[in-house]
């Protein structure tokens, strides 16, 4: 390739990794395989933290107990992706912050089963406080996508 007479040399990184999930995510992912979502409780501020982690960053202490949360929750905030990005799903898709029942903070996941063809249509259904529930993948792999996505709970 050339650009205004200057050469451009193609390149590519293909590096395989193996990420250690660590103590807390391991228990969390094993829970997902049984369709259970676990958070941890901070003994100091009493927050239930999801995804679980080895320390409460506010109190600087380790959590004291595991608490099952969800699988229902409510939408805190969301965005809708309309552009195709390499390695990510085909648009449109929505990404939301979801506060699971019993948890004090939010996880990030896909929101689906909503008409996302325009923000106007999506906003008729999606707004902060809308009740959601997890939709599980049929085949579990011990990863975050064992929850396929969250969908609004049918009401009334």
């Amino acid at each position, binding site marked *: 390739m050339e650009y205004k007479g200057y050469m451009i040399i193609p390149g590519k990184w293909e590096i395989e990794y193996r990420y250690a999930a660590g103590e807390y995510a391991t228990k969390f992912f094993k829970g997902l395989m049984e369709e259970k979502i676990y958070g941890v409780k901070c003994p100091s501020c009493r927050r239930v933290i999801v995804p679980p982690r080895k320390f409460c960053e506010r109190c600087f202490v380790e959590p004291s107990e595991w608490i099952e949360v969800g699988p229902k929750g409510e939408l805190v905030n969301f965005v809708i992706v*309309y552009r195709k*990005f390499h390695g990510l799903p085909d648009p449109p898709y929505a*990404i939301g*912050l979801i506060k699971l029942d019993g948890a004090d903070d939010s996880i990030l996941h896909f929101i689906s089963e909503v008409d996302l063809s325009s923000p106007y249509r999506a906003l008729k259904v999606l707004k902060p406080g809308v009740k959601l529930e997890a939709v599980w993948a049929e085949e579990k792999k011990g990863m975050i996508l064992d929850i396929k996505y969250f969908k609004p709970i049918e009401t009334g």
Partner: protein
Amino acid sequence: MVKQDVAVVGVGLTKMGRRYDSNHSELAWEAIKELFDKTTIWIDDVDAVVYGTMDPFDGIASPERWDSSAYGIARGAGKPLVKVTTGGTTGMSIALSAYYHVASGLYDIVLAVGTQKVTEPVEAQEVLNIAVDPLFDRHTGVGAIAVGAIQASAYYFDYNKKIEEYMAIVASKNRLNALRNPYSHLKLKVTPEEALMAPYLIWPIKLLDSCPSSDGSVAVLMASDKVARKIFDSPAWVSAVDYISDTYWFCCNKGLSFWNSLAILARRLYRKAGISDPKKQIDVFELYDAFTIQEILEYEALGLANKGEGWKLLEEEATYPYGDYPVNPSGGVLSTNPVGVTGLWRFAEAALQVMDNAGAHQVPNVDIALAHAWGGALQFHALALLSRERKLC
């Protein structure tokens, strides 16, 4: 403890943008050459070098290995080198680290420099995606555009359902400002109406609400009070700097519609510098506006507007170059974003404004300028105040 005062005594910038005409170390050399062509000292007078970039936009891990010769590190006995990288704040982390080098009394003349080529990844978003943790969040691709969109969405629900109209004004204002800056990447004569018509990338962020991917290099020379005026007779004094860190996690406490961490940092910096009324005392602002919504959030966090009312400044044109609080007269990050050096460019622009050297986008009568960068998962902020007077209070 500040052992000696610190001033900016020189700035070297490259033309930013799609720099396929130049490889990584040539681009580094271009900024260095411009800096030393304009100053009275030479590379051999420099005591130490602070370098930064956000790996691996450039497709090279640790590009300092390639670039260091351009920074004169390899000459003679060689110089000490520190490399910093903190995502979007990298450039300001370079500036702050160089400041610490001098303020500590350990060195008198320090070169702060960064080089970044964001046009070399075929899709920059892929690099942003690998900056997200691989266990819980990466599947959603919540890179930079999505985090800007999360802020805009939060603002939409919390404060203003018409925020997209005001974001479009920011999109237009900063692109028009860039037309007067020869170093800037995008040259777009765009109206707010056109910005509003652009397609969505990630709702509520549209194409023109987002920064471009740019290449560029920035070099800033800092010197102690012992030598500053010998190098440049009207330097820009670094009156105060500060940095704040917040949690990685998007938990409920992190300000999405109001940037709490930046507001805390601004109060801390103003107190340190003796700024009681930023609206009156600060003459120009160079802020990290990767997305239009962020400039509005920054107005509020920096005390230029009340919470939830930043958009009102746009109705009054207060942040245009001729307004009461000019923000990003350079064209800002919306016009040019070589990520890891963008913060250093904000710092350099603030210095140039104070030195009366900004060129066609110079704001008249600047005594005090504020530079800002944010980085990470909306979690880091850096601020620096530059001034014409050595002592503010």
